[in-house]
């Protein structure tokens, strides 16, 4: 038993921390801290900065321009970037399509597409969910019909995150309508400039625009855009869903948000004294901190097992459920800490002299509502429970 990171890992952490201190632009950091939506340019700037160190393709092997990190390093990098209020990486190109192409892509696809992900030429988005197929991907209906050297795609995708900034989309489409649910699905790459594609914004509960609907009407895509074999899409989708498990628990965000909550509860005066001195509120903080300490270790246990290949299939579901519960509870406590002052909307509209709360807490209620998505997107917590139940009750 040894819960310490190695000296090398600690040195790596120091290196990441120093890099972030020196290179994370303050205006971007401030937006992240204040829950202000980032512009497209902010993401591009940040990706380019990371790429100066080959840190953008965190899961990629060195020969394709990645840093060649192990699980622990990726974990440390994720934790440190969260703690520093760096932007979340836009995962679709780097963390999703990249690994898929590395495993299933042709040499030509790798050569053409991978460099454009790293240098920012392409912004990929994801076409998985459909209005009738959210957590239940196997029921998707978007059709791709072979026509000579092309497919013709018709259908609708939804929940396409940051699609408004993208020029490319990777999709799951049904290529064999006769096949059983999971079969007959293919994984295909589409240029968003292709005629017949329309992207419409979906406004979220708190007013933000981060997801979209994408409509496909007779969209013609060359067969060479297929990744892997026709009707092999489900295999790829499953690979993708289970591939990237680092930071699934979001402990970096939780550690950061807990610290910010403590500061806020210290500054907030409630009933004549700092809120943090109210034992009932302090109880909530302390319990959450304990839960967080536990999941940090759970996370490390899973990391260590997956490094040695001993990880169970359902461990990432466990991290997802408990991790989102903790982050959401912190969001909720932060919202709660503001009392009546949580109301103004949008928070950034208020002039400085009329702000009701510290700048970095102004959007706390919006952030709380927005983060209800954490337990819904990426396989809802109910679906995760089903996955674990299947394992527990098997045999």
């Amino acid at each position, binding site marked *: 038993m040894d819960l310490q990171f190695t000296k090398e890992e600690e040195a790596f952490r120091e290196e990441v921390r120093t890099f972030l201190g020196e290179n994370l632009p303050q205006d971007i950091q401030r937006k992240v801290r204040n829950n202000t939506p980032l512009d497209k340019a902010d993401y591009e700037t940040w990706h380019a900065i990371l790429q100066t160190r080959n840190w953008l393709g965190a899961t990629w092997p060195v020969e394709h321009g990645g840093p060649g990190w192990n699980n622990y390093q990726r974990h440390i990098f994720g934790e440190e970037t969260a703690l520093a209020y760096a932007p979340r990486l836009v995962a679709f190109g780097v963390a999703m399509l990249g690994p898929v192409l590395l495993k299933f892509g042709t040499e030509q696809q790798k050569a053409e597409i991978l460099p454009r992900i790293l240098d920012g030429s392409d912004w990929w988005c994801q076409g998985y969910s459909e209005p009738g197929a959210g957590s239940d991907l196997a029921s998707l209906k978007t059709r791709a019909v072979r026509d000579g050297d092309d497919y013709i795609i018709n259908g609708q995708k939804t929940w396409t995150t940051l699609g408004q900034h993208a020029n490319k989309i990777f999709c799951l489409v049904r290529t064999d309508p006769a096949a059983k649910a999971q079969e007959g699905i293919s994984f295909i790459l589409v240029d968003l400039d292709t005629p017949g594609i329309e992207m419409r914004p979906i406004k979220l*509960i708190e007013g933000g625009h981060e997801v979209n609907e994408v409509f496909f009407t007779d969209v013609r895509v060359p067969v060479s855009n297929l990744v892997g074999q026709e009707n092999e899409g489900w295999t790829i989708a499953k690979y993708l869903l289970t591939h990237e498990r680092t930071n699934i628990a979001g402990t970096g965000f939780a550690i950061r948000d807990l610290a910010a909550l403590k500061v806020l509860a210290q500054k907030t005066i409630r009933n004549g004294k700092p809120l943090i001195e109210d034992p009932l509120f302090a109880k909530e903080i302390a319990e959450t901190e304990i839960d967080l300490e536990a999941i940090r270790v759970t996370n490390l246990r899973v990391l260590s097992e997956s490094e040695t290949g001993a990880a169970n299939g359902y461990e990432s579901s466990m991290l997802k459920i408990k991790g989102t519960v903790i982050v959401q509870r912190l969001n909720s406590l932060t919202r709660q800490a503001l009392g009546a002052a949580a109301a103004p909307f949008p928070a950034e509209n208020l002039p400085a002299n009329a702000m009701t709360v510290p700048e970095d807490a102004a959007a706390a209620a919006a952030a709380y509502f927005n983060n209800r998505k954490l337990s819904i997107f990426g396989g809802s917590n109910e679906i995760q429970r089903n996955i674990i139940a299947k394992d527990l009750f098997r045999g």
Partner: protein
Amino acid sequence: MDFNLSEDRRMLSDTLRRYLAEQYDIETRNQAAYHAPFYAPAKYTELADLGVIGAFVSESAGGFGGEGFDITTVFEELGRALCPEPMLATLMSVRVLADLKQSTLVDEIVTGQKRPALAVFEPEAGENLCDIQATFSDGKLTGRKSVVYGAPNADLILVVAKEGDQIGLYLTEAAETVDYAMIDGGGAAEVILDDTPATCLSNDAQAALEAALDAGRLGLCAEAVGAMDVMLGMTIDYMKQRQQFGRSIAVFQALQHRVVDMAIEIEQCRSISVLAASHLGAAHSAKYVAMAKNLVGRTVVKFSEEVIQLHGGIGMTWEYPGAHYAKRLTMIDHQLGDALTQLHKVMQAA
């Protein structure tokens, strides 16, 4: 024992439900709720004409209601319709003015000629009126009032301020305000007082204010019950219609049991609101109101989270009416003291 509404209240309730259902489809509601002045002035006046404001005060004070059940009757309907009109501000204002025998102002408010807002809280003064720092002297107010409900476009702002140690109520029509929408819709403002001219209505208004705030809390409880009732129905309808894995998600027992627990909690909230309404203004009124607002506060947050979760992605969208219900319900816990604050009051009263 009788848990039915009186004939008069049932008529008011029916009228109001019909009116609100006709007037507030979700687009109309959102248009009013999120754009200045964050309500629909013409509809506010119509509500006054329907007798909504008169129901808040007793006959002797110029209305025709004034009991706890009058308040809950109105606010339950407002909650059902997710009505953005600033009736909370009006309720509290007209109650405190009636208590202070300001009959002219009461008449103007009841008839809808003038719309008031009550400026109580400050950035560092929440529940406890004694913590208030705004001051009145030489006919002028100085200080800062925060999140004043209904202040945008209000005709009158009633400001709670201290003269010496006494907590008084002052009327101003000249305050500088910074208006904004609230995250769940409806308007509020920061009120900045800097030697702002004002009239003293009473220099000893603490008891009347506490009572008016409790009336407001009771209104919020009833509003929450109405909104939850509607939201439960919407959730069940959604679950029946939503297909996943080839079946309506309404058949999944794990989800059903969660809906059942929500339904039970709505009834508990309704019961505690009825209890608080029956005690309003009588002995232990403050304690029963605190109990009600605590239980409602505990419930609305969990309820809204469950509602969003059970809807999946749809519940996260602005377009879906339920999302606005969920926001409103959550933010009710932020108004006039949250569950934790109310629990402290209950613990102290024990």
